[in-house]
């Protein structure tokens, strides 16, 4: 867990002098409100969140459950690199990323990202781009369980 407030180097915004950060891997159920509250400060007017959930199907095939595995320390470090990059690029006042690992049931949340800024465009762009970067480079893996088997996503047959 990494929760702190540190100077926003390179931020173009005069306010605030501190950016709110949280980057975490957890085995517990996720709440979107928890992350909204991390990034919600008086100087902002917009919070955008992404909540990823376990879908009951993939490419027409019925999914029973998912299991996430992470390289915990590096995943948190990589999320923090992404978060600080987004905070600088989009002049955020806060960004938080929490990813759940372990076995998840259909409809449960696997990841929540929250980004806050004085204006809405920056918060939308930052949240969307943080998600793209997370999917591209944070060392987390997803195993899909079907009625007739299981496989690690993105690895081919398994």
């Amino acid at each position, binding site marked *: 867990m990494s929760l702190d407030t540190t100077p926003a180097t390179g931020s173009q915004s005069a306010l605030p002098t501190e950016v709110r950060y949280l980057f975490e891997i957890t085995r517990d159920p996720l709440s979107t409100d928890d992350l909204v509250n991390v990034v919600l400060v008086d100087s902002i007017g917009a919070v955008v969140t992404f909540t990823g959930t376990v879908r009951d199907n993939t490419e027409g095939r019925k999914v029973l459950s998912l299991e996430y595995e*992470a390289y915990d320390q590096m995943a948190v470090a990589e999320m923090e690199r992404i978060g600080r990059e987004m905070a600088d690029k989009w002049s955020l006042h806060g960004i938080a990323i929490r990813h759940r690992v372990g076995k998840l049931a259909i409809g449960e949340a696997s990841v929540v990202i929250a980004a806050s800024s004085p204006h809405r465009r920056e918060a939308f762009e930052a949240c969307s781009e943080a998600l793209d970067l997370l999917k591209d480079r944070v060392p987390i*893996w*997803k195993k899909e369980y079907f009625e007739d088997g299981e496989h690690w996503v993105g690895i081919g047959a398994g």
Partner: protein
Amino acid sequence: MKVTVRLFATFREAAGTSENVNQVEPGTTVAQLWDALQTQFPRLQPMAAISAFAVNGYYAKPTTRLADGDEVAFIPPVSGG
């Protein structure tokens, strides 16, 4: 010198272990360690080409030379989110 190997997801299952301490010569590269692991755990061989590499929590090139005590992770295609 000694390095700690971390294996995840499909690599972990293929090797049957998530962590392994390997004795390597000074100057050994990440790619050479990966080759050694293929020999040690033959079930990793079909997946050799899909790995990315990290040293001490940072993505690294296959040509990166290892130091004593490094933690080296072999990273199958990620699928978080």
